[in-house]
Protein backbone atom coordinates (compact mmCIF):
# COMPACT_ATOMS: atom_id res chain seq x y z
CA UNK A 1 0.00 0.00 0.00
CA UNK A 2 1.50 3.23 -1.07
CA UNK A 3 0.33 6.47 0.45
CA UNK A 4 1.39 9.82 -0.82
CA UNK A 5 2.02 12.53 1.72
CA UNK A 6 -0.66 15.17 1.53
CA UNK A 7 0.50 18.62 0.64
CA UNK A 8 2.10 18.16 -2.73
CA UNK A 9 5.68 19.16 -2.94
CA UNK A 10 7.42 17.98 0.15
CA UNK A 11 11.03 17.33 -0.55
CA UNK A 12 13.27 20.23 -1.30
CA UNK A 13 16.97 19.91 -0.87
CA UNK A 14 19.28 22.67 -1.88
CA UNK A 15 22.91 22.17 -2.62
CA UNK A 16 25.36 24.94 -3.30
CA UNK A 17 28.67 23.85 -4.66
CA UNK A 18 31.17 26.54 -3.92
CA UNK A 19 34.13 27.18 -6.12
CA UNK A 20 37.42 28.89 -5.53
CA UNK A 21 39.81 28.93 -8.42
CA UNK A 22 42.69 31.06 -7.21
CA UNK A 23 44.88 28.67 -5.29
CA UNK A 24 45.54 25.23 -6.73
CA UNK A 25 46.45 23.59 -3.44
CA UNK A 26 43.00 24.17 -1.94
CA UNK A 27 39.89 22.19 -2.89
CA UNK A 28 38.42 23.82 -6.00
CA UNK A 29 34.98 23.03 -4.77
CA UNK A 30 33.06 21.69 -1.87
CA UNK A 31 29.38 21.03 -1.39
CA UNK A 32 26.87 22.51 0.96
CA UNK A 33 23.65 20.64 1.62
CA UNK A 34 20.48 21.38 3.56
CA UNK A 35 18.07 18.55 4.35
CA UNK A 36 14.32 19.00 4.94
CA UNK A 37 14.39 16.72 7.99
CA UNK A 38 17.08 18.91 9.61
CA UNK A 39 15.90 22.48 8.97
CA UNK A 40 18.34 24.02 11.45
CA UNK A 41 21.40 22.19 10.17
CA UNK A 42 23.71 22.55 7.22
CA UNK A 43 26.27 20.11 5.88
CA UNK A 44 29.58 20.67 4.13
CA UNK A 45 31.30 17.90 2.19
CA UNK A 46 34.78 17.89 0.69
CA UNK A 47 34.68 14.62 -1.25
CA UNK A 48 38.33 14.65 -2.17
CA UNK A 49 39.26 14.59 1.49
CA UNK A 50 36.37 12.40 2.61
CA UNK A 51 35.27 15.12 4.98
CA UNK A 52 31.72 15.84 6.14
CA UNK A 53 30.79 18.55 8.60
CA UNK A 54 27.48 19.08 10.33
CA UNK A 55 26.84 22.62 11.53
CA UNK A 56 24.04 25.00 12.37
CA UNK A 57 22.44 26.64 9.36
CA UNK A 58 24.08 29.92 10.44
CA UNK A 59 27.36 28.50 9.07
CA UNK A 60 26.13 29.67 5.66
CA UNK A 61 26.10 33.26 6.92
CA UNK A 62 29.62 32.82 8.25
CA UNK A 63 30.88 31.50 4.90
CA UNK A 64 29.24 34.42 3.09
CA UNK A 65 30.94 36.89 5.42
CA UNK A 66 34.33 35.21 5.00
CA UNK A 67 34.12 35.67 1.21
CA UNK A 68 36.78 33.03 0.66
CA UNK A 69 34.45 30.84 -1.38
CA UNK A 70 31.44 31.76 -3.44
CA UNK A 71 28.43 29.81 -4.53
CA UNK A 72 28.51 28.84 -8.19
CA UNK A 73 25.89 26.18 -8.76
CA UNK A 74 22.82 25.42 -6.72
CA UNK A 75 20.65 22.38 -7.32
CA UNK A 76 17.23 21.62 -5.92
CA UNK A 77 15.91 18.14 -5.34
CA UNK A 78 12.14 18.51 -5.50
CA UNK A 79 9.50 15.84 -5.41
CA UNK A 80 7.25 13.75 -3.24
CA UNK A 81 7.51 11.48 -0.27
CA UNK A 82 5.76 8.14 -0.14
CA UNK A 83 5.13 5.62 2.62
CA UNK A 84 5.34 2.01 1.47
CA UNK A 85 4.93 -0.15 4.57
CA UNK A 86 8.17 0.18 6.55
CA UNK A 87 9.84 1.95 3.67
CA UNK A 88 9.85 5.68 3.11
CA UNK A 89 10.51 6.74 -0.45
CA UNK A 90 11.42 10.14 -1.74
CA UNK A 91 11.44 10.62 -5.47
CA UNK A 92 12.44 13.93 -6.91
CA UNK A 93 13.78 15.68 -9.94
CA UNK A 94 17.07 17.50 -9.83
CA UNK A 95 16.96 20.98 -11.32
CA UNK A 96 19.30 23.96 -11.06
CA UNK A 97 17.88 26.72 -8.85
CA UNK A 98 17.40 29.20 -11.67
CA UNK A 99 16.60 26.86 -14.51
CA UNK A 100 14.03 24.31 -15.56
CA UNK A 101 16.54 21.93 -17.12
CA UNK A 102 16.11 18.48 -15.65
CA UNK A 103 19.46 17.11 -14.53
CA UNK A 104 18.24 13.80 -13.22
CA UNK A 105 15.87 11.97 -10.94
CA UNK A 106 16.83 10.92 -7.45
CA UNK A 107 15.13 8.33 -5.33
CA UNK A 108 15.84 8.05 -1.64
CA UNK A 109 14.81 4.84 0.13
CA UNK A 110 14.71 4.65 3.89
CA UNK A 111 13.92 1.51 5.86
CA UNK A 112 12.46 2.94 9.05
CA UNK A 113 12.68 0.08 11.59
CA UNK A 114 16.48 -0.31 11.51
CA UNK A 115 19.21 2.30 11.95
CA UNK A 116 22.12 -0.08 11.40
CA UNK A 117 23.45 0.04 7.88
CA UNK A 118 24.77 -3.51 7.97
CA UNK A 119 21.64 -5.03 9.48
CA UNK A 120 19.42 -3.37 6.91
CA UNK A 121 21.66 -4.10 3.92
CA UNK A 122 19.89 -7.28 2.84
CA UNK A 123 16.36 -5.92 2.96
CA UNK A 124 17.43 -2.72 1.25
CA UNK A 125 19.09 -4.73 -1.48
CA UNK A 126 15.95 -6.81 -1.97
CA UNK A 127 13.81 -3.71 -2.22
CA UNK A 128 16.12 -2.20 -4.80
CA UNK A 129 16.03 -5.38 -6.89
CA UNK A 130 12.22 -5.34 -6.80
CA UNK A 131 12.24 -1.70 -7.80
CA UNK A 132 14.60 -2.31 -10.71
CA UNK A 133 12.37 -5.13 -11.90
CA UNK A 134 9.25 -2.95 -11.78
CA UNK A 135 10.98 -0.07 -13.54
CA UNK A 136 12.41 -2.30 -16.27
CA UNK A 137 8.94 -3.56 -17.14
CA UNK A 138 7.79 0.00 -17.74
CA UNK A 139 10.42 0.54 -20.43
CA UNK A 140 11.32 3.94 -19.02
CA UNK A 141 14.43 5.63 -20.40
CA UNK A 142 17.49 5.62 -18.20
CA UNK A 143 18.16 3.49 -15.19
CA UNK A 144 18.59 3.95 -11.49
CA UNK A 145 22.16 3.60 -10.25
CA UNK A 146 23.16 3.16 -6.67
CA UNK A 147 26.72 3.82 -5.58
CA UNK A 148 27.09 3.56 -1.85
CA UNK A 149 29.84 5.78 -0.54
CA UNK A 150 32.42 4.34 1.82
CA UNK A 151 31.03 5.91 4.96
CA UNK A 152 33.95 4.72 7.07
CA UNK A 153 36.29 6.90 5.01
CA UNK A 154 34.23 9.87 6.15
CA UNK A 155 34.56 8.79 9.77
CA UNK A 156 30.91 7.71 9.90
CA UNK A 157 29.83 4.57 11.72
CA UNK A 158 27.21 1.91 11.23
CA UNK A 159 24.45 3.93 12.91
CA UNK A 160 22.76 5.90 10.14
CA UNK A 161 22.60 9.68 10.61
CA UNK A 162 21.85 12.81 8.62
CA UNK A 163 25.57 13.07 7.90
CA UNK A 164 25.29 9.76 6.02
CA UNK A 165 22.42 11.28 4.01
CA UNK A 166 24.49 14.36 3.22
CA UNK A 167 27.39 12.21 2.00
CA UNK A 168 25.03 10.19 -0.20
CA UNK A 169 23.60 13.33 -1.77
CA UNK A 170 27.10 14.62 -2.35
CA UNK A 171 27.89 11.37 -4.18
CA UNK A 172 24.70 11.74 -6.22
CA UNK A 173 25.67 15.32 -7.06
CA UNK A 174 29.07 14.19 -8.25
CA UNK A 175 27.48 11.47 -10.40
CA UNK A 176 25.04 13.96 -11.94
CA UNK A 177 27.76 16.46 -12.70
CA UNK A 178 29.99 13.77 -14.21
CA UNK A 179 27.11 12.46 -16.33
CA UNK A 180 26.22 15.92 -17.62
CA UNK A 181 29.86 16.60 -18.47
CA UNK A 182 30.16 13.25 -20.28
CA UNK A 183 27.05 13.97 -22.36
CA UNK A 184 28.34 17.43 -23.21
CA UNK A 185 31.69 15.97 -24.27
CA UNK A 186 29.97 13.51 -26.62
CA UNK A 187 27.87 16.28 -28.15
CA UNK A 188 30.92 18.44 -28.69
Amino acid at each position, binding site marked *: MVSKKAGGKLLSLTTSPCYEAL*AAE*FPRDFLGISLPEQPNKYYFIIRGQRL*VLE*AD*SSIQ*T*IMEKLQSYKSKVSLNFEGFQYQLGDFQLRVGKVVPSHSENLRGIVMEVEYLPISSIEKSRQIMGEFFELWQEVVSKRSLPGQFMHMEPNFAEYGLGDLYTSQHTAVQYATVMAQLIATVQAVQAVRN
Partner: protein
Amino acid sequence: MECVVQGIIETQHVEALEILLQGLCGVHRERLRIHEICLKSGPNLGVVASEVRLLCDLEHPEPSWTVRHIGGAMRGAGAEQISVLVRTMVESKASKNVLRLFYALGYKLDHELLRVGFAFHFQRGAQITVTVSSVNKMLKLHATDEAVPVTPGIQLVEVTAPASSENYTEVVAAMTSFCEYLAPLLHLSKPGISTGVVPSAAAAAASLMSDGGGTTL
Protein backbone atom coordinates in the same frame (compact mmCIF):
# COMPACT_ATOMS: atom_id res chain seq x y z
CA MET B 1 25.11 41.15 16.58
CA GLU B 2 26.44 41.46 20.14
CA CYS B 3 27.29 44.07 22.73
CA VAL B 4 30.64 43.73 24.50
CA VAL B 5 32.68 45.36 27.23
CA GLN B 6 35.91 44.11 28.79
CA GLY B 7 38.05 44.78 31.80
CA ILE B 8 40.85 43.25 33.83
CA ILE B 9 41.08 42.26 37.45
CA GLU B 10 43.87 40.96 39.59
CA THR B 11 43.61 37.23 40.25
CA GLN B 12 43.65 37.85 44.01
CA HIS B 13 40.32 39.71 43.71
CA VAL B 14 38.54 37.15 41.50
CA GLU B 15 36.98 35.38 44.45
CA ALA B 16 35.44 38.65 45.64
CA LEU B 17 34.17 39.32 42.14
CA GLU B 18 32.59 35.91 42.09
CA ILE B 19 30.78 36.64 45.36
CA LEU B 20 29.50 39.90 43.93
CA LEU B 21 28.39 38.28 40.69
CA GLN B 22 26.67 35.46 42.55
CA GLY B 23 24.64 38.02 44.45
CA LEU B 24 23.80 40.11 41.41
CA CYS B 25 23.00 37.33 38.96
CA GLY B 26 21.13 34.92 41.19
CA VAL B 27 22.41 31.91 39.24
CA HIS B 28 25.20 29.44 39.74
CA ARG B 29 28.43 29.96 37.91
CA GLU B 30 29.50 27.60 35.16
CA ARG B 31 33.06 26.49 34.76
CA LEU B 32 34.80 27.61 31.63
CA ARG B 33 37.59 25.95 29.70
CA ILE B 34 37.60 27.11 26.11
CA HIS B 35 40.29 26.39 23.55
CA GLU B 36 40.09 29.28 21.11
CA ILE B 37 41.72 28.78 17.72
CA CYS B 38 42.02 31.82 15.51
CA LEU B 39 42.37 31.05 11.81
CA LYS B 40 43.19 33.42 8.98
CA SER B 41 42.82 32.85 5.29
CA GLY B 42 45.97 31.89 3.48
CA PRO B 43 47.43 33.97 0.64
CA ASN B 44 45.29 34.20 -2.48
CA LEU B 45 42.29 32.71 -0.77
CA GLY B 46 39.24 34.82 -1.45
CA VAL B 47 38.81 38.45 -2.40
CA VAL B 48 39.74 39.78 1.02
CA ALA B 49 41.64 38.36 3.96
CA SER B 50 39.31 36.75 6.45
CA GLU B 51 39.45 35.52 10.00
CA VAL B 52 37.38 32.95 11.80
CA ARG B 53 37.52 31.58 15.35
CA LEU B 54 36.92 28.03 16.39
CA LEU B 55 35.97 27.52 20.01
CA CYS B 56 36.32 24.10 21.58
CA ASP B 57 34.54 23.72 24.90
CA LEU B 58 36.76 21.39 26.92
CA GLU B 59 34.72 21.51 30.10
CA HIS B 60 32.50 18.57 29.24
CA PRO B 61 33.55 14.93 28.60
CA GLU B 62 32.68 15.30 24.92
CA PRO B 63 34.24 18.52 23.57
CA SER B 64 31.88 20.65 21.54
CA TRP B 65 32.85 23.06 18.77
CA THR B 66 31.55 26.49 17.80
CA VAL B 67 32.51 28.56 14.78
CA ARG B 68 32.48 32.29 15.42
CA HIS B 69 32.83 35.16 13.00
CA ILE B 70 33.29 38.62 14.48
CA GLY B 71 32.50 41.42 12.12
CA GLY B 72 32.91 45.14 12.14
CA ALA B 73 31.85 47.38 14.98
CA MET B 74 29.05 49.86 14.70
CA ARG B 75 30.42 53.23 13.61
CA GLY B 76 29.33 56.80 13.69
CA ALA B 77 28.63 59.51 16.24
CA GLY B 78 26.04 57.37 17.97
CA ALA B 79 28.48 54.52 18.42
CA GLU B 80 31.15 56.78 19.86
CA GLN B 81 28.79 58.08 22.48
CA ILE B 82 27.95 54.72 23.97
CA SER B 83 30.37 52.95 26.27
CA VAL B 84 29.57 49.50 24.91
CA LEU B 85 30.92 48.03 21.69
CA VAL B 86 28.20 46.89 19.30
CA ARG B 87 29.45 44.59 16.56
CA THR B 88 28.25 41.92 14.20
CA MET B 89 28.84 38.40 15.35
CA VAL B 90 27.65 35.09 13.94
CA GLU B 91 28.08 31.71 15.62
CA SER B 92 27.41 28.16 14.55
CA LYS B 93 27.76 24.89 16.36
CA ALA B 94 29.75 22.40 14.32
CA SER B 95 30.86 18.79 14.44
CA LYS B 96 34.31 17.88 15.65
CA ASN B 97 36.13 17.94 12.31
CA VAL B 98 35.53 21.64 11.78
CA LEU B 99 39.20 22.48 12.28
CA ARG B 100 40.15 19.94 9.64
CA LEU B 101 37.58 21.46 7.29
CA PHE B 102 38.94 24.97 7.60
CA TYR B 103 42.52 23.77 7.19
CA ALA B 104 41.37 21.96 4.03
CA LEU B 105 39.71 25.15 2.79
CA GLY B 106 43.02 27.00 3.06
CA TYR B 107 42.86 28.63 6.47
CA LYS B 108 46.01 28.84 8.60
CA LEU B 109 46.47 28.97 12.33
CA ASP B 110 47.15 32.52 13.44
CA HIS B 111 47.13 31.96 17.19
CA GLU B 112 45.43 29.91 19.83
CA LEU B 113 44.48 30.54 23.44
CA LEU B 114 43.07 28.64 26.35
CA ARG B 115 40.58 30.50 28.52
CA VAL B 116 40.06 29.02 31.97
CA GLY B 117 37.63 30.43 34.49
CA PHE B 118 33.91 30.70 35.00
CA ALA B 119 30.82 32.32 33.55
CA PHE B 120 27.46 33.59 34.70
CA HIS B 121 24.51 33.55 32.29
CA PHE B 122 21.45 35.51 33.42
CA GLN B 123 18.60 37.73 32.37
CA ARG B 124 18.65 41.36 33.55
CA GLY B 125 17.04 43.54 30.94
CA ALA B 126 18.95 41.48 28.39
CA GLN B 127 20.47 38.03 28.19
CA ILE B 128 23.83 38.86 29.73
CA THR B 129 26.90 36.68 30.06
CA VAL B 130 29.81 37.55 32.33
CA THR B 131 32.99 35.53 31.89
CA VAL B 132 36.00 35.76 34.16
CA SER B 133 39.01 33.91 32.83
CA SER B 134 42.74 33.64 32.69
CA VAL B 135 44.03 33.80 29.16
CA ASN B 136 46.70 31.18 28.53
CA LYS B 137 49.01 30.48 25.63
CA MET B 138 50.18 27.09 24.51
CA LEU B 139 53.89 26.39 24.26
CA LYS B 140 53.27 23.56 21.81
CA LEU B 141 50.70 23.33 19.06
CA HIS B 142 47.23 22.55 20.50
CA ALA B 143 48.82 21.46 23.82
CA THR B 144 46.07 22.67 26.15
CA ASP B 145 47.53 20.73 29.07
CA GLU B 146 50.71 22.79 28.89
CA ALA B 147 49.25 26.27 28.70
CA VAL B 148 50.73 29.17 30.67
CA PRO B 149 49.10 32.52 31.50
CA VAL B 150 49.73 35.33 29.08
CA THR B 151 49.52 37.84 31.94
CA PRO B 152 50.17 36.08 35.25
CA GLY B 153 48.17 37.52 38.10
CA ILE B 154 45.65 39.22 35.82
CA GLN B 155 42.35 37.87 34.54
CA LEU B 156 40.03 39.08 31.80
CA VAL B 157 36.43 39.96 32.53
CA GLU B 158 34.08 40.10 29.58
CA VAL B 159 30.42 41.11 29.62
CA THR B 160 28.45 40.26 26.48
CA ALA B 161 24.85 40.18 25.35
CA PRO B 162 23.27 39.24 22.02
CA ALA B 163 21.51 42.10 20.26
CA SER B 164 19.80 43.03 17.03
CA SER B 165 19.53 46.24 15.08
CA GLU B 166 16.07 46.68 16.59
CA ASN B 167 16.93 46.26 20.26
CA TYR B 168 20.61 47.10 20.71
CA THR B 169 19.86 50.37 22.53
CA GLU B 170 17.93 48.47 25.20
CA VAL B 171 20.69 45.88 25.45
CA VAL B 172 23.32 48.58 25.79
CA ALA B 173 21.30 50.25 28.55
CA ALA B 174 20.89 46.95 30.41
CA MET B 175 24.59 46.19 30.19
CA THR B 176 25.63 49.68 31.22
CA SER B 177 23.33 49.53 34.21
CA PHE B 178 24.67 46.15 35.27
CA CYS B 179 28.30 47.14 34.85
CA GLU B 180 27.85 49.99 37.29
CA TYR B 181 27.50 47.42 40.06
CA LEU B 182 30.95 46.07 39.22
CA ALA B 183 32.62 49.49 39.23
CA PRO B 184 34.21 49.16 42.71
CA LEU B 185 36.13 46.12 41.50
CA LEU B 186 36.86 46.78 37.85
CA HIS B 187 36.45 49.18 34.97
CA LEU B 188 34.67 47.81 31.94
CA SER B 189 35.08 49.43 28.56
CA LYS B 190 35.09 48.71 24.87
CA PRO B 191 37.64 46.10 23.79
CA GLY B 192 40.86 47.76 22.80
CA ILE B 193 40.47 50.61 25.26
CA SER B 194 42.71 49.83 28.21
CA THR B 195 41.63 51.13 31.59
CA GLY B 196 43.84 49.13 33.94
CA VAL B 197 42.87 47.87 37.37
CA VAL B 198 40.69 49.84 39.76
CA PRO B 199 42.56 51.46 42.69
CA SER B 200 39.71 50.71 45.08
CA ALA B 201 39.52 47.06 44.08
CA ALA B 202 41.51 45.82 47.05
CA ALA B 203 39.28 47.57 49.57
CA ALA B 204 36.13 46.53 47.78
CA ALA B 205 37.31 42.94 47.58
CA ALA B 206 38.20 42.90 51.26
CA SER B 207 34.75 44.14 52.11
CA LEU B 208 33.11 41.49 49.99
CA MET B 209 35.25 38.72 51.42
CA SER B 210 34.70 39.79 55.01
CA ASP B 211 30.96 39.42 54.97
CA GLY B 212 30.39 37.21 51.94
CA GLY B 213 28.78 39.91 49.83
CA GLY B 214 26.37 41.27 52.41
CA THR B 215 27.90 44.74 52.22
CA THR B 216 26.44 47.13 49.69
CA LEU B 217 29.35 48.60 47.69
